[in-house]
């Protein structure tokens, strides 16, 4: 929103001794963000009335003249000028070197075809007075030589502040210059000139008779109307507005239209309350009805667009048709034009939420609707009506008010002012600034609050009605008023006094950090983060059995992200396919959320760790399994890696999912539940992602245990006093027998002296069908050295056991 300081100065004096930039900065620090400070009209005071003395042809160019002129009768200046209307003795505005014209051109000394030209004799166009013009501006011969154009043309300099609308969301009182002026008066502690006082009100009211109003007002209580004033004025002549009004409207970005429309805009920008002026003759009948629509209706707004209204919207209508869309925009059928001679002025207040709802639905945000959305004060409507009447009668000396003011809506005399009890001592403490009760009182009084001291530090503070609509309702709001006026920047940083207590990351956060450290440092993986939302297409490409249709967004931005993901695996398939395009092998992982539909809780969010290992040729499955096993051990994760179980199924993947490799699969069992899985992705599924190679995933549901403190189960046993013995032997097995079967077979031998069976080596001759597996069994007894005899018997026992199970000793 553009704010004119010239306008503000009608009501309070902004400081003259600081720069416009600084004023903007101080306003930003105290009230709302000023995005830009624009200075306009400063060229006027540098452009002077000059008189042409002589004119001669440019020696080098036929169409140019060398013009000699004076600005004080004594000096002689010369410019090169192309205008054809230059004659000796004429008066015209002269802009010297250094002046910046409204079109942005800054004048510099310049040689034109070899002749130096200093400054410029200006045309209307160059001065910004009209959009195009012929020749330089000829001033009347009585124009005083040397006078600045600021004085002569009665022009004004102005500073415009462009204030961020968003930072005024909570301040309905700042949507007009008068309200802003009060803010300036508080910031700079300068007097506020209250033009609109009781005397003023009386003098305007004296123009209004008490006779019957020609247009009655009827408010439907179901409508969004809070207050509605109407007044009829006749003998109107619609003309162009006076220059001062056009200038102000243009300055803040509004296009002047005609004297009546301009008044309605001007008053809105001045007092912050929108209003609407009808052509009275276009109102059919003698009543306007403010109704909530019961049915759909088409309405043509002023901007010549057909609007589809729905039941619940509020309109102002006569006995025939809707005239205005309440609080948003007038209709094409009732607007003022050049032929209007009689007007009906509407000043009303509407429920903020309903105005916003309708305007949002229609995509129609107007100067009016954006003010009503902020929750305006009904008590300001009357003042607005009177100010409008004041201007109407000022511009139309013949104008005559017809009848009294009509009103319908809430009983405004019923509204009680909001009074808050505020402890100034607590205010000081929370502010963190030592400031006296007198200073606090002065700031609040400047902002139109009324104060009564109840005891030492306790004051009752009466809030002005226009601040109490939504903005201010508790003592914290009063604290803000004081804080922002003294300037938050003037509050010193202060360390609080705090008690000391140990603080640590919670077990889940701690676990996540340890996993990331392990995966990054030990497993040579990169952490990634993928979208929490996925689309049906991705889930279908994965043949993922859960579609999360209950966790679908109603306003998703794209079909590819229209629901919460049931698992990270589809996201990881997509990311793996992307990376396989660029790399021959990779490893990455994520700790992210899966969203599980729940009838009871709507959804359950689980933190999952998912790891992806890929190589274009070789299976990464066992690498992934071994790294995961190490991870679990290193982090004391209470679980183990196990085969599929006929009864206990995986809780993280559907074991019948077609994406699973037929053999490369393990469950991870955590505290008895299959809360994790390790698998290679089936090549057939990779094909859906146009991907080749070997891709293996690990997935663990961390939520199942992350909130526990994981215990380190390390136990110390005293060093062995007696030596252990080792027995190495080689068995020959067929290649298609898993080596694990041999170890499993060995584990069945029950003998307390056996410490372990481990594989030493494996080899095969040529490319035979057999594999030789060398194993080592370690024996130990903590109480004695094992005898040779015992060892011999034990070794034989092992060999016999293997033999019985079909594992022959190597010949």
């Amino acid at each position, binding site marked *: 929103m553009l704010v004119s300081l010239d306008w503000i100065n009608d009501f309070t004096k902004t400081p003259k001794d600081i720069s416009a930039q600084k004023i903007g900065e101080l306003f930003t620090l105290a009230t709302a963000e000023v995005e830009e400070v624009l200075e306009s009209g400063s060229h006027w005071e540098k452009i002077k009335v000059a008189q042409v003395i002589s004119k001669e042809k440019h020696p080098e160019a036929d169409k140019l003249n060398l013009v000699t002129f004076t600005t004080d009768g004594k000096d002689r200046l010369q410019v090169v000028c192309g205008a054809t209307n230059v004659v000796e003795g004429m008066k015209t505005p002269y802009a010297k070197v250094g002046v910046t014209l409204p079109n942005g051109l800054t004048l510099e000394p310049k040689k034109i075809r070899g002749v130096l030209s200093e400054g410029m004799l200006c045309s209307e166009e160059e001065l910004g007075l009209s959009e195009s013009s012929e020749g330089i501006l000829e001033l009347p011969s009585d124009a005083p030589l040397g006078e600045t154009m600021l004085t002569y043309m009665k022009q004004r300099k102005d500073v415009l502040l462009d204030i961020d609308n968003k930072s005024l969301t909570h301040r309905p009182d700042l949507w007009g210059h008068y309200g802003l002026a009060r803010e300036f008066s508080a910031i700079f502690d300068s007097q506020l000139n209250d033009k609109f006082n009781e005397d003023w009100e009386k003098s305007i009211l004296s123009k209004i008779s008490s006779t019957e109003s020609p247009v009655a007002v009827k408010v439907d209580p179901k409508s969004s109307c809070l207050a509605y004033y109407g007044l009829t004025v006749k003998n109107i002549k619609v003309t162009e507005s006076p220059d001062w009004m056009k200038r102000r409207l243009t300055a803040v970005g509004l296009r002047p239209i005609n004297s009546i429309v301009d008044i309605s805009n001007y008053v809105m920008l001045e007092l912050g309350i929108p209003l609407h002026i009808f052509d009275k003759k276009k109102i059919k009948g003698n009543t306007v009805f403010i109704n909530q629509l019961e049915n759909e209706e088409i309405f043509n707004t002023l901007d010549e667009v057909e609007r589809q209204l729905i039941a619940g919207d509020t309109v102002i209508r006569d006995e025939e048709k809707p005239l205005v869309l309440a609080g948003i925009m007038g209709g094409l059928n009732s607007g003022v034009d050049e032929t209007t001679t009689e007007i009906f002025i509407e000043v009303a207040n509407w429920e903020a939420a309903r105005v*916003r709802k309708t305007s949002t639905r229609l995509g129609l945000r107007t100067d009016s609707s954006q003010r009503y959305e902020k929750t305006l004060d009904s008590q300001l409507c009357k003042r607005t009506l009177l100010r409008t009447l004041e201007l109407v009668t000022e511009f139309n000396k013949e104008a005559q008010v017809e009848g009294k003011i009509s009103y319908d809506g809430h009983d405004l005399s019923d509204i009680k002012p909001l009074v808050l009890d505020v402890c100034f001592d607590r205010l000081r403490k929370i502010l963190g600034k030592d400031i006296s009760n007198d200073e606090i009182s002065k700031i609040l009084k400047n902002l139109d609050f009324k104060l009564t001291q109840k005891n030492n530090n306790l004051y009752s503070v009466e809030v002005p009605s226009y601040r109490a609509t939504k903005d201010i309702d508790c003592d914290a*709001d009063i604290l803000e008023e004081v804080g922002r006026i003294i300037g938050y920047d003037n*509050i010193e940083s202060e360390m*609080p006094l*705090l008690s000391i207590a140990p603080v640590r990351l919670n077990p889940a956060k701690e676990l996540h950090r340890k996993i990331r450290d392990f995966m990054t*440092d030990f497993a040579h993986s990169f952490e990634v983060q993928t979208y929490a939302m996925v689309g049906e297409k991705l889930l279908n490409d994965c043949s993922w059995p859960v579609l999360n249709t209950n966790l679908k967004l109603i*306003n998703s931005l794209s079909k590819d992200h229209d629901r919460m993901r049931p698992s990270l695996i589809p996201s990881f398939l997509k990311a793996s396919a992307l990376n396989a395009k660029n790399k021959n092998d990779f490893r990455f992982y994520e700790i992210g959320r899966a*969203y599980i539909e729940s009838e009871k809780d709507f*959804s359950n969010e689980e933190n999952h760790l998912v790891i992806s290992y890929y190589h274009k040729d070789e299976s990464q499955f066992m690498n992934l399994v071994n790294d995961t096993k190490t991870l679990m051990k290193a982090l004391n994760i209470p679980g183990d890696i196990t085969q599929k179980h006929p009864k206990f199924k995986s809780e993280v993947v559907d074991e019948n999912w077609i994406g699973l490799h037929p053999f490369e699969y393990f469950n991870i069992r955590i505290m008895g539940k299959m809360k994790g899985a390790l698998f290679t992705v089936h090549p057939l599924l990779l094909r859906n992602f146009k991907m080749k190679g070997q891709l293996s995933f690990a997935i663990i549901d961390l939520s199942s245990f992350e909130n526990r403190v994981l215990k380190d189960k390390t136990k110390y046993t005293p060093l062995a006093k007696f030596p252990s013995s080792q027995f190495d032997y080689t068995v020959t097995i067929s290649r298609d027998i898993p080596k694990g079967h041999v170890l499993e077979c060995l584990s069945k031998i029950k003998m307390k002296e056996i410490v372990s069976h481990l594989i030493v080596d494996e080899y095969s001759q040529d490319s035979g069908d057999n594999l030789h597996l060398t194993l080592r069994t370690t024996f130990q007894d903590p109480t004695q050295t094992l005898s040779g005899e015992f060892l011999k018997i034990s070794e034989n026992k092992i060999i016999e056991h293997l033999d019985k199970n079909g594992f022959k000793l190597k010949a």
Partner: protein
Amino acid sequence: MISKLEELYSEFVDSLKNVNEQADILNLKSDFLGKKGKVSEVLKSLKDATVEERKAIGPKANEIKDNILKNINEKLTSIEIEKINKKLESNKIDISVFEDQYVDNIKHGGFHPRTLIQQEIEDVFLSMGFEVLDGPHIETEFYNFEALNIPADHPARDMQDTFWFTHPNSEEENKHLLRTHTSTIQVRGMLERKPPFRFIAPGTVFRCERTDASHEMVFNQLEGMMVGEDISIGNLIYFMKTLLKEIFKKDVTVRLRPGFFPFVEPGFELDISCLICNGKGCSVCKQTGWVELLPCGMVHPNVLKAGNIDPEKYNGFAFGLGLDRLVMMKYGIDDIRHLNTGDLRFNEQFNKY
């Protein structure tokens, strides 16, 4: 006799030069130093010498013996070293290339850049006694709006910013949505503890807005809250300045100006002096010299009430930080969308090793 000994030594030195086998050297040793060796032979005639002569010859003889022994040992060691080195040479490995000079070297790893920044900030606050919390992404209107003093008709509840699971106009109560800010954790944090307390809450948030290089529908924020008795704006400034000093590793000039957020009163925008131009004005700070970084404020009494805290007795401050913006600022990332793709061409740039 002394000259004889010296002759003998030079004879030894010459002989040693000509032998290169361990056995020959040992033979040479016994030739000279053995019981019947050349030195002993010379010394035999010592018995005929005068006392004076003996005094001079004794030390000389020992010196020569020592030198011979030393020379022999040196020679033996050098022969052995030469032998071992020859063996080592035949088993020479190639030390001219390193692991990272191979295609498909997989020994790299790294964290997501968000993790790097987030953990750093978590540690700063942990060290000042703040807990670290998180909460669900799918929330209800109560936690996302109502408890945060954002009433039913507030524009923030409209469709434009929030992802909804149920139409906001539907009659259903306490509708589900994706949290639009981490402030939901303020409410959960308050309900779970009794003042005084302080915590931060980094987390993912969701906004229904079109994505481009600087906007994402999924991004990360960090929330902070401190509640106690007589917590002042000065305290808030202290923690914010400390945080910024820790993040940027230098004192940062800040300014506090009014800002409007329904869940704080008063609310502030904390700007930092632009780090690119040092506050002189540049394209990053839009010529203002200031960059908006930290919305914050004193917790609104209605929010305290929603968290079961008596606003007459306790108060506090809260702040929010756009984590992704910090990440982008720190690493000069040009497109926020890279953060969520899982594209390793992006993530690998943040390799730890």
